[in-house]
Structure formats: C-alpha cells, structure tokens
C-alpha cells in the first residue's frame, strides 16, 4: 500500500531532496523567546529596589503562570512556522510547503516540466557564514514562482532542480517542444513548414 510522504505524493514518485529551513534561521525566534522569558525575571529582580508592595503576591503568581503559558504557546507556534516550511524535489514535481501562520498554509505543486529557471541567493553575514539562503524557482505561464527562504545550500538546490528538469525533458521526449517554445525551431521542420514560392 502506498503511504504518501507529503500531500499529493504519487506512487512511484521518487523523492530526490527534502529540504527544511536551516536551523540558524530559528535563531531569531529563540532570541525573542529568551527575551520574553527574561523580561518578567528582570522586573521581579528590580521591583523590590523600587519599593514594590508584595501584598498581592497571589496575583503575581497567577500572572506569571498565565504569562508562562502565553510564552510557551507563542514559542510553539513559531516552531511550527519554522518546522513546517519545506521544499520537496521529486523526479516529477517541486512541492513547496509554507506554513504562514498557525492556520495559514500554502502548498505549491509545480511540474518540473514547467520550470524555466532556478536560482539560489545568499544575503548577509549569517547566510554567507552558514551557507543558507533563498531558492527561487521560476515557472512558465501564470503559475506563481516557488520561493523558499532560509534553506541550506540554495545554489545546490537550484542546480539540482534544473538537472532534474533536464532529465525529465529528456525522458519525456519534450526537447522539441521546449526548443520551439524558446524560439529555437529545428531547421528541418522550419523548411518543411515554409510556404512554397
């Protein structure tokens, strides 16, 4: 029985790459969380020096408990946003899954036959140091492009995408159609189609 690895996974479709976001890209959410945890601790440390009245300490405990649950929930939603963003390259498709928020999700399935161009982009100190960045896969027609951010080794993914695209074109025997679409008509066909003088 065929168990799909991702939504839309067809039987016999071979997964070449399954790419998650780079772990370093989770650094900013971690820093946000550390700040959110440190903030009440700092306030509680500073409060006695400012003449804080601790007669309602039960409200402080309840408030800290509520704040703890809030911070934990925010952390989990940020983790979901990080963990469920991924790019899958199969021998037939590019599948881009983007978790936009807790309830927002965008999944793009693009046939490798429609891919026109793939590029990898790194920008800034962290991305250059840890070799991660954005992969942009452009397609023909009105289909929106695939943009996956913070993936490791974007240049390799772009290269692999084009390699798979070329292999599929060759396998399906679509080279003639592709050449025609790009304006490179085979000379034999052009002569045959030319009107008689």
């Amino acid at each position: 029985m065929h168990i799909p690895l991702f939504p839309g996974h067809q039987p016999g479709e071979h997964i070449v790459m399954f790419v998650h976001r780079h772990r370093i890209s989770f650094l900013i959410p971690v820093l946000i969380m550390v700040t959110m945890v440190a903030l009440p601790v700092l306030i509680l440390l500073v409060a006695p020096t400012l003449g804080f009245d601790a007669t309602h300490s039960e409200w402080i405990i309840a408030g800290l408990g509520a704040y703890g649950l809030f911070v934990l929930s925010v952390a989990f939603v940020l983790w979901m946003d990080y963990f469920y963003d991924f790019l899958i390259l199969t021998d037939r498709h590019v599948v881009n899954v983007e978790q936009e928020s807790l309830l927002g999700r965008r999944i793009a399935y693009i046939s490798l036959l429609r891919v026109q161009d793939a590029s990898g982009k790194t920008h800034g100190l962290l991305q250059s140091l840890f070799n991660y960045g954005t992969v942009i896969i452009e397609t023909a027609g009105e289909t929106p492009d695939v943009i996956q951010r913070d993936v490791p080794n974007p240049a390799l993914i772009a290269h692999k995408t084009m390699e798979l695209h070329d292999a599929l074109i060759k396998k399906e025997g679509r080279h003639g159609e592709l050449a025609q679409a790009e304006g490179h008509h085979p000379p034999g066909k052009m002569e045959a189609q030319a009107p008689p003088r």
Partner: protein
Amino acid sequence: MTIGATSFFLVVTFAWALFSFLVVSRIRTVRYKEDKSSVALTVYLAVALAIIMATLIFLL
C-alpha cells in the same frame, strides 16, 4: 483574593487548553510521514502542565 487569582488562572488555563486543542488538530492536518513533531508536542504539553501545576500549588 486568592480565590480571585485562582479563578483568573483557571480561566487562562481553560483558554490555553482550547488553544492547544486547536494546535494539536492543526498538527494532525499538516504533519507528514516520519515527522518528529510528536516529540515537540509532548515537550510543549509537558512544560505547560508543569507551569499549570506549579502555579496552582503556589496559589492553593
């Protein structure tokens, strides 16, 4: 006053439980095969339970 604070915290806990139900349902729909999200979910629920228990112990 303790009753007020405890009631407040119980309301917050109830709201959190509703939110967590939504999160768990969401994970069930977005997860894929061989996904390790159950580990993260267990940690999340365990830490939340620890916070709830610790707060209630201090309050009661």
